[in-house]
């Protein structure tokens, strides 16, 4: 048979995405929040690097006092984490930072001498962005690319306007929700049920009530949360090939943001 050219177009497709593995985890406490991720970046069966940073601390200027205390952000910081296709994650982070910069640069209100009463005698209002506003902005960025999505699971952590810990999580096209805890990325299906049980006390009942009375919700302490995070990551490192190498834990509370690093298995 004679081949016919030009009738059926031959389609070549370029795949603009890749899966770079890794896991991202956020927990909100009463007066603190945690955002943690592993530091491995991989593609297929190759480890690209053992030290990549999936979380960015977006913060107002640090004081010299903060720097002396080795803080990496103020208590107004936004912990911004992305997981999935790393190029999109980086682009999303840059997009948000750009918005943050312009948003905060236009509302650096200072109290003017003689006009104190306008601010009800409050301290100078620092230029910052609330978590609520940040989350809504991220939704707009993600949904703006609804038909060519940023292929990432995004989690923000910080303190809300009352100083309570908060975590916002997003799907690739911008659906979002404030939650007590959330895991994203490769280890999500392994860790999330564990956190449901340990943070939100799912399937925990008061002994002796014949599984009729649920265990009452209460905030976990920072120490309890850190233990959960470390346990979660060491476990998922055992069971998932794209998770490992190192663990970065960012902790935000009224003092500011602190970074903890722990080694994970490199195999």
């Amino acid at each position: 048979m004679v081949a016919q050219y030009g009738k059926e177009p031959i389609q070549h497709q370029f795949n603009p995405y890749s899966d770079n593995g890794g896991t991202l985890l956020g927990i909100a406490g009463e007066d603190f929040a945690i955002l943690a991720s592993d530091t491995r970046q991989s593609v297929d069966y190759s480890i690209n690097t053992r030290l990549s940073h999936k979380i960015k601390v977006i913060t107002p200027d640090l004081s010299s006092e903060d720097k002396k205390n080795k803080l990496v952000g103020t208590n107004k910081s936004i912990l911004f984490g992305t997981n999935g296709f790393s190029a999109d994650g980086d682009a999303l982070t840059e997009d948000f930072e750009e918005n943050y910069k312009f948003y905060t640069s236009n509302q650096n209100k200072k109290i003017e001498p003689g006009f104190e009463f306008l601010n009800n005698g409050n301290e100078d209002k620092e230029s910052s962005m609330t978590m609520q506003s940040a989350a809504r902005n991220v939704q707009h960025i993600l949904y703006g690319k609804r038909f060519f999505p940023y292929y990432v699971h995004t989690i923000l952590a910080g303190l809300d306007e009352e100083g309570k810990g908060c975590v916002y999580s997003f799907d690739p096209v911008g659906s979002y929700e404030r939650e007590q805890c959330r895991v994203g990325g490769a280890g999500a299906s392994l860790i999330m049920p564990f956190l449901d049980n340990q943070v939100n006390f799912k399937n925990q009942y008061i002994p002796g009530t014949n599984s009729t009375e649920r265990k009452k919700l209460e905030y976990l302490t920072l120490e309890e949360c850190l233990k959960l995070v470390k346990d979660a990551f060491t476990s998922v490192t055992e069971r998932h090939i794209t998770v490992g190498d190192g663990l970065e834990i960012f902790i935000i509370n009224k003092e500011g943001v602190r970074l903890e690093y722990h080694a994970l298995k490199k195999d």
Partner: protein
Amino acid sequence: MNHDPYSWGRPTDSMYGQYNSQIANAPTSLEGNMASGANQHTTSPIVTGTSVVAIKYNNGVVMAADNLASYGSLLRFQGIERLHKVGKTTMVGISGDVSDMQYLLEILDELTIEHNYDNDEYSDNVDELQPDYIFTYLANLMYHRRTKMNPLWNALIVSGVNSKTGEPFLQYVNLLGVKYSSPSIATGFGAHLAIPLLRKLADSEEEAQKLTKEQAIQGIKDSMRVLFYRDTRSSKNYSLAVIDKDSGITYDNDVNVEDMSWKFAKDIRGYGTQKV
């Protein structure tokens, strides 16, 4: 035979049916008719360069790539340099499509010229081009092109030394815009064959800071040998660049794989399963 030179080498009509000249004559956006023209995007590379490998050491970076450009399995061009100096302390190593590489080189030339223009008398001293400027620019370009679904089919390694801080620099970006840095980086086959050897030398920044230049060069030479053994699209002849904090860039475009041993091949017949 049709003796008209114009039809030499063309598929015969009797075999393939009449050639649909619309394919070759299809207007493209390059010809200026945007409205009806089809845009042409790269969907697969044509002439390609194989792995680039690089490792940091206590005073800089060592990087290597062979001088071969393949057309499929044909060793098409054997004198193609794939390590390029940009500014005073940066080398860019490029694998993947060679025409896209040459386009990137044009862009890097433009970048350098613009830098010299913008920064005037400071452009070659206090405000010279740094590896991180070049990398950021290239990474943005690569991601931008992938987002337009029209990628530059390459994986790049930017290595160098920041002349202000003296810090060694090594980072990777590919056609998807995925970027990362590591004490040792390799593209393509090198990621499978060279990286295990290089990570044995330095698996963390701390270990890389203890590595000497000689150790690093030896590691890269060993990697190039293993790649020549196992990568069919590699060549014996390669280029080696050392970017050192103190002595600047030393570049040799005519290094050959040494200390090879093919003794294991002595008894192999056919595909290896054949007995004598």
